[in-house]
């Protein structure tokens, strides 16, 4: 790499020309993804597609130029997290007049399907071939977010990303990542390492409970993001309690705790889908490793990891835990270049930049396809409000 150099953080930086060259495939991909948006009627849709395309390509260029991943990915991810509710809520209000979903829409199969439900569907579907969700399997005019479409999207992206879904695909994680980015330092530093096991306990509980009572228990009672998306219409004491729980969990896990700890606390300490997604890290070819010869046990990676996927034991073993979402925070922060991107089967540190590039092309392609369309929808909604009221 003639025009590539190493920074003090051992990251590979590149010249402008080489960075542009490496960004070109992503330019083509982005054009492919956003051309349909440009064909839709409406100036705000054209503007949103163009802005999002430039945004996604620009961030990828920055990744190539600086060698940093986490910093640029975070900008995308926070934008995704905050623009998803904008577009989604506006669509709900336009169709239904409210963020709440009344029972008459549920029995009509009009509940938009969210990937968080997937773990709860498995056992009842395997035993009885029924899906315990008040949505529709195929898209309908009143519910384009069908179960089949979301399953297809999630499984296809999971094959590429593994747990990376939580850093490049999930439209909820960006909200807490945004709040975690606000303070310069964590005010709450002592976090019990065992907290990382809670998502597994929540996953086991909701899977068993959903199988027993044939209800998507997490969606009905525990999902913090219902507070900023949709929730069952409050018509009695039970639905009032549900709404209260959603607001409390959102405030605590998505706003306050990330602000205090600089961690993604809902993802790291609660989210059952994150735990479920960790299983797919086992079949994904990319992971994060630690070169023991270079490591000085400074623990910067442990502090930087947003989801407690790295602790002293993991560093000692030379491998991030299976809950690692490949966000790149540890690699970017490691001053000795000991934390590295890695392709399973290859020697640790043999060619980490090749591993990073191969992973990033796939991950950013997915981010542009899915997250990019969500961001474009959010921008288009804002433009619509600003221009047309």
């Amino acid at each position, binding site marked *: 790499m003639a025009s590539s150099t190493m920074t003090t953080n051992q990251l590979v930086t590149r010249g402008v020309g080489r960075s542009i060259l490496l960004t070109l495939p992503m330019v083509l991909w982005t054009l492919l993804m956003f051309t349909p948006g440009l064909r839709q009627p409406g100036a705000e849709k054209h503007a949103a597609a163009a802005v999002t395309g430039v945004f996604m390509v620009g961030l990828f260029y920055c990744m190539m130029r600086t060698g940093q991943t986490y910093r640029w990915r975070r900008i995308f991810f926070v934008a995704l997290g905050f623009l998803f509710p904008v577009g989604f809520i506006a669509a709900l209000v336009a169709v239904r007049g409210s963020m709440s979903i009344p029972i*008459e*829409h549920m029995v009509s199969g009009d509940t938009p399907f969210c990937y968080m439900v997937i773990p709860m569907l498995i056992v009842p579907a395997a035993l009885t071939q*029924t*899906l315990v969700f008040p949505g529709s399997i195929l898209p309908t005019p009143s519910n384009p977010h069908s179960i089949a*479409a979301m399953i*297809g999207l999630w499984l296809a992206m999971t094959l*590429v990303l593994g747990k990376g879904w939580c850093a490049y695909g999930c439209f909820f994680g960006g909200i807490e990542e945004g709040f975690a980015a606000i303070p310069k330092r964590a005010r709450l530093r002592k976090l019990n390492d065992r907290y990382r096991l809670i998502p597994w306990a929540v996953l086991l509980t909701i899977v068993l409970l959903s199988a027993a009572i044939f209800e998507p228990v997490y969606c009905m009672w525990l999902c913090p993001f219902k507070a900023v998306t949709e929730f069952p219409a409050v018509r009695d004491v039970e639905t009032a309690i549900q709404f209260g729980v959603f607001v409390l969990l959102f405030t605590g896990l998505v706003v306050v705790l990330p602000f205090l700890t600089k961690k993604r606390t809902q993802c790291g300490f609660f989210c059952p889908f994150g735990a479920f997604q960790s299983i797919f890290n086992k079949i994904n070819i990319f992971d994060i490793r630690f070169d023991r010869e270079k490591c000085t046990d400074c623990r910067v990676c442990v502090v930087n990891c947003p989801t407690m996927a790295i602790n002293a034991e993991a560093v000692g073993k030379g491998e991030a835990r299976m809950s690692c979402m490949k966000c790149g925070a540890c690699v970017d922060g490691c001053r000795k270049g000991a934390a590295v991107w890695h392709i399973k*089967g290859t020697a640790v540190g043999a060619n980490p930049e090749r*591993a990073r590039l191969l992973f990033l092309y*796939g991950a950013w392609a997915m981010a542009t396809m899915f997250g990019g369309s969500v961001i474009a929808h959010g921008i288009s909604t804002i433009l619509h409000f600003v221009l047309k009221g």
Partner: protein
Amino acid sequence: MRLRITSVLGTTVAVVTLFVALLVPLKLMGGIASAFAHAGFRIDPVYSGGNVLRTFHGTGYTVTVYEAVFPHWLQRGKPFQQVVFAPATALPAHVDQTIDMDGDGKPDLRLVFDLPSDPNAPLHGSVEALNAKYRSVANLGNNSFTELLVRADSRILLRVPLAGKK
């Protein structure tokens, strides 16, 4: 030697993963969705109302009677049967109608409710069981999957609780 083989294999899989990424929006996503849609799954009848049992016509509207739904062992709610009137606009402002649920020529239920002109206004009504299979309800609500009288899009959807178990 072993490291070399695994290294070549690993890098090959990484490159294949990249091609899989390219296929996601072009083929893979739609392929998986289509396979899932045709795998024979169905929405739980407690939400969907179950399968259609029979259909008959009123004056300008259609009445669709669904099969009885029996919740699973620990599932919340009681057995019920769904009836749908469509379109709602063809119904009179005051509905007082007997319904033959099983098609044996004898009325099984008497349904009484007012249909406000405001489509967002809640419905208030009652159902009287004329057959021991059903349970009478004085005030049908809008917050239970198994005891329901609501306007859903252009339809009136009724869920009547059954008196006994399967």
